[in-house]
């Protein structure tokens, strides 16, 4: 008796519960996570840390590395921007309008999640190559899509789109018609209701979708390398440079690029969590 009351005052990992299996399941979860994710990531960190700060900095600011990072980030930024516009539009249309085939299109939004990236990569290349169905159309204008940064953006649009649509869709479904009606009764026209009431209330979801699509674009490999052209400083993305370094058996060089990318994606992940926490605290809904 005395022991339990003493225990109550002290630090305790978990609240008491009659349900069994806490130790087993949490133990397995942590062990499995450590083995599969944590230890390998630590190996990466140690490998980069072996260089020392100066060495790391020198390797990370190598011109080709910077060039690849620049290509990855700018193309991902463009793609995420396009996806925000069209993803919001698609989410709107899927939630608000009824038209034949809506269910099918709703299902197809998830195609980029399901289609292997290598398959997407060669398919997009086949379409946008100079002899492809769309490549042919723009070739007479002197435009090239495949084997240029534009091609990279297109591949990133493909793989990022569902992140935006699927983040906004549930939030949009929750927006009650009452709020729009309230706006109308106060004299706002439809455009004002959309720009001042609806879109701002979707902002956290749009930002989250943007960050998710952007993060995915930066790390993307399979769908991009076929269409990219892979010319250093122009269309060579950072993940490809990692692969090239590995093929040169330059493990440290690969580890450095990977560490930089990881730091940036963790920062993005952190930003997403901040957006959601902020939105929940202030507005009472997440994204």
């Amino acid at each position, binding site marked *: 008796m005395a022991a339990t009351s003493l225990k109550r005052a002290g630090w305790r990992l978990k609240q008491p519960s009659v349900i069994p299996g806490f130790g087993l399941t949490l133990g397995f979860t942590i062990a499995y996570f450590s083995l599969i994710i944590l230890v390998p990531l630590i190996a990466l960190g140690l490998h980069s840390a072996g260089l020392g700060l100066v060495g790391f900095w020198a390797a990370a600011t190598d011109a080709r590395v910077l060039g690849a990072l620049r290509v990855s980030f700018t193309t991902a930024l463009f793609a995420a921007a396009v996806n925000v516009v069209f993803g919001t539009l698609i989410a709107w249309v899927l939630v608000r309008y009824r038209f034949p085939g809506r269910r099918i299109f709703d299902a197809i939004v998830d195609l980029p999640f399901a289609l292997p990236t290598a398959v997407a990569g060669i398919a997009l290349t086949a379409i946008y190559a100079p002899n492809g169905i769309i490549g042919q159309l723009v070739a007479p204008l002197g435009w090239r899509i495949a084997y240029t940064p534009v091609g990279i953006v297109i591949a990133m649009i493909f793989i990022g789109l569902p992140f935006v649509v699927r983040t906004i869709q549930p939030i949009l479904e929750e927006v009650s018609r009452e709020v729009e*009606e309230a*706006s109308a009764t*106060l004299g706002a026209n439809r455009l004002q209701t959309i720009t001042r009431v609806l879109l701002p209330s979707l902002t956290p979801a749009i930002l989250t979708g943007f960050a998710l699509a952007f993060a995915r674009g930066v790390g993307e490999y399979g769908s991009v390398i076929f269409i990219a052209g892979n010319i250093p400083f122009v269309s060579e993305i950072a993940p490809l440079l990692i692969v090239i370094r590995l093929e040169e058996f330059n493990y440290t060089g690969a580890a450095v690029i990977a560490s930089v990318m990881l730091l940036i994606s963790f920062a993005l992940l952190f930003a997403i969590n901040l957006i959601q926490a902020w939105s929940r605290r202030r507005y009472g809904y997440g994204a």
Partner: protein
Amino acid sequence: MDVRIAKVRKEFDRFPALHDVSLDIHSGELIALLGPSGSGKTTLLRLIAGLEMPTDGRIFFGDIDASEKTVQERNIGFVFQHYALFRHMTILENVSFGLKVRPRSSRPPAGEIRRRAMELLDLVQLSGLEKRYPNQLSGGQRQRVALARALAIEPGVLLLDEPFGALDAQVRRELRKWLREIHDRTGHTTVFVTHDQEEALELADRLCVMSQGKIEQVGTPDAVYDTPSSPFVFGFIGESSELPVTIGSNELLLDGRSVGLPASSGTSGPARLFFRPHDVELTDDDAALAGEVTASRRVGGTRRVEIEIGNNGQKVEIDLPFDHPAGQRSRISFRPRRWRLFDVKPQA
């Protein structure tokens, strides 16, 4: 502003929600649309607002035919049941919204908008909370913001849809009193929808009782309570007991026996007798309603007694003082002090 509803009919996918409803709303009055769910009260409110369009009929604001006007043009203030506040805006921004979205030509300067919004927040007793977000307020506070927001555009008519429906009982009662005060101070023509008769009786100048897409009765709370015009109204407003009776030559008969109540006109045949449980007197007279007590329970300051009357085992309820000895007796005779007779329900 007067609002006149002239023979308005509304169908949703050919399902009739309102049948040729006509109603005159007087300038400055507080009128309640009262009815059970599905009675068409909210539909009528939304038609006045312009959130729906009538299938047939006209709606006049003053002398102007508003039927063709959009919701934006009607200049009404609408308060929604679930407040419908803009969650990403502060309280002040919510209240200012209606003025800020006006076209440049009729939009007051920013300072003026702010002044008016603050004034309204003061009116609804929310001064000091203008920088909060709706999420940070209680339900009652949110509803007051919703009202301030609706008042900010200086509406011709104020429309409230079950304004207290989502609040708990205590807050409801407070806000009810408070809404009456605001109305008396601002004098807006106000229409509010409720299914709560107590709320309607306490708050409204006039009631409009609705059922199944039709208006049953319009009148002051006293008139509606004391002289209900239909069995529905009698049953819906206040408590009622009902007995099937027969109209004899000059008096009412139950199972062929006189119940001691005179029958007015020359009509005869079966009828429905309605009375209020609290509006009865006990009697020793033979010509009375008499029966056996089947249940008795204390309700506040009175005793509610259930009595089985007549050959068909009809049960009615009457109220007695809680310590009245008759409450314990197995047989009671009584007569309603006030009652009404209605025709037997026509076969639907």
